[in-house]
């Protein structure tokens, strides 16, 4: 019985890892440009609520998803303005955003608790879903999972194979040099932060429209913070971040499934592993300097002030 559970486990890993991945990809982009956004948890919550409300009112979940992304953009505007234009402390601004977003979603969501809405149902990708074993694992999911699938290579290509991606990386590593070359640090950073906000909104909408179809106060349960960790775990590389997110989802799915078949699991120790692995991964990456750059954007977390 155990062996046949493995494909189901991987399927669950994808399902559980997707909200984290969506948020992490957005945060990755922002951090690559040098802006740390600790407000992802708040943006995710607002995105979850917005997506839920709009989907419930309009009856169409995709409109809800769009609204969720826009809500994420709007919230991230605050952080962007504070950290980029006003050179405010990014950590403080992000934390304030999380507090505010938690409050905003809690307040506006009061009348939507206990109300069902139409969400997403799993869609099988034609032809791919029929592939034995792999089909069930990867291609019979909610549509937002497929969006995440596309975003991973998309972001990779953007960052490493396009001019805008080059600009992003330059701004995150050496904003002064980028500025001297005529790249607008401000425009690049704003774009990345707002894009990150939309991804956070998407991640939230996945929770309230796909994973479950409901709204409950504070329903993200810390997934935004986990996404932050996954960006680092993945070394600011979209593919490795995806691996990290799915791995995290997998660990969680595994411990639930082990319980289901009656195996005792030391939960808290198990839950520590992703974070411990992250630190380990960082040490290994740092220690092997020969392989090149660790990946931490050099200018991450520091305000860029022209002329200093």
């Amino acid at each position, binding site marked *: 019985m155990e062996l046949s559970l493995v494909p189901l486990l991987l399927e669950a890993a994808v399902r559980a890892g997707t909200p984290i991945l969506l948020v992490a990809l957005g945060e990755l982009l922002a951090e690559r440009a040098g802006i740390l956004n600790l407000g992802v948890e708040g943006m995710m919550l607002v995105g979850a609520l917005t997506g839920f409300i709009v989907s419930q009112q309009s009856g169409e979940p995709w409109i809800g998803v769009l609204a969720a992304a826009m809500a994420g953009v709007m919230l991230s505007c605050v952080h962007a303005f504070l950290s980029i234009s006003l050179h405010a402390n990014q950590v403080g601004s992000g934390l304030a955003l999380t507090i505010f977003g938690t409050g905003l979603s809690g307040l506006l969501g009061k009348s939507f608790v206990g109300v069902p809405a139409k969400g997403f149902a799993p869609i099988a990708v034609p032809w791919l879903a029929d592939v034995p074993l792999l089909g069930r694992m990867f291609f019979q999911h909610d549509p937002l999972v497929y969006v995440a699938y596309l975003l991973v290579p998309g972001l990779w290509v953007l960052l490493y194979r396009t001019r805008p991606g080059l600009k992003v990386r330059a701004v995150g590593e050496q904003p002064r040099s980028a500025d001297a070359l005529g790249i607008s640090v401000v425009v690049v950073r704003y774009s990345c932060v707002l894009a990150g906000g939309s991804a956070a909104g998407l991640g939230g909408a996945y929770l309230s429209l796909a994973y479950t179809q409901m709204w409950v106060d*504070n329903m993200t349960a810390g997934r935004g913070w986990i996404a932050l960790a996954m960006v680092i775990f993945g070394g600011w590389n979209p593919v490795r971040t995806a691996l990290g997110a799915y791995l995290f989802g997998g660990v969680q799915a595994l411990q639930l499934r082990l319980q289901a078949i009656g195996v005792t699991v030391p939960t808290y120790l198990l839950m520590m592993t992703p974070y411990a692995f992250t630190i380990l991964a960082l040490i290994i990456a740092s220690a092997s300097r020969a392989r090149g750059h660790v990946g931490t954007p050099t200018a991450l977390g520091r305000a860029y002030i022209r002329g200093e």
Partner: protein
Amino acid sequence: MAKWLAVMVITLLTSVLGAAGGTPEALKVGFIYVGPVGDYGWSYAHDQGRKYLETTLPDVQTTYVESVPEGADAERVLTQLARSGHKVIVATSYGYMDTMLKVAERFPDVVFLHCSGHKRRANMGTYFGRMYQASYLTGLVAGTMTQKKRIGYVAPIPIPEVIRITNAFVLGVRAVNPEVNVHVVWTNAWYDPATESEAANSLLDIGADVIATQSDSPAPVQTAERRGAYGVGFNADASKFAPEKHLTSAIWNWGPYYAAAVKQVRAGTWKSTDEWWPIGTGIVGLSPFGPVVVDTLKNLVEQRKQDLIAGRFDVFWGPIKDQSGKLRIAAGEKPADEMLLGMNWFVESVVGTVPK
């Protein structure tokens, strides 16, 4: 002239003072919740009780403070409620116990009600409902409806109350079909809809065709219906999330208790007691049955419920064995409440462990 003025002033004064003296002051009742009212679960159910109190007793004014962590903050909030004129204060989580005891000592004129605790004072009473009785009834339904003889149970945090309610459910299942296995998965959170949904998935993956939950959100029931399984909810009616396959939910109905307690306080007849109200009082019960529950099953449940109310039978009357086969409650034994309150073992037919 002066005489008329004096008369007017005196008339005015007496009418004003008379009016002030005549109006009964609204009784202020304060509630503190450990979670947000928007959890559609434990705190939500208490808040429904608070609203019932407000509508039933119009001259009662209620206040609520939500998401109060059980720790340093709780003492402050309880004290602030006591200092701002609340005459009855309700704390709805076990973890508030010692804190409330401390505050109750400082405010002997205020009545304190602590849910699910076991420490009391002259001005502090404890109350709870025998949810395990309602849970047993839901087990009867689940045990009848399962065809694959495998039921999944999503449990939040391993405290004795949760274990007890889980056991009651399983006993109900065993009463109709001792061959059924109930697989228990712990989410280690009071509410986290996504994880609860995943827990339900993990149970459905191993072939469960009924999913019952004790966590705060209806996510497992919703997930169950999406995958064609039946669902049994908890804390609040989950039927809106699974209109076709929802069987029933074990729900709280705190309103009548709050109304009764406040009336007693107002009448001056309230005494500190340890109340563990049984199902007959209506404090726990079942939500309306779902469309698939047939009349014969409804009748069975109703019959057992009447048995419980009349005292002809109770859930944990022996013989009851634990998972390892050891006899924990002997035949004919009717365990005392202490034993139930400290329950930390699973009954037979449970697959899953109590984390130590």
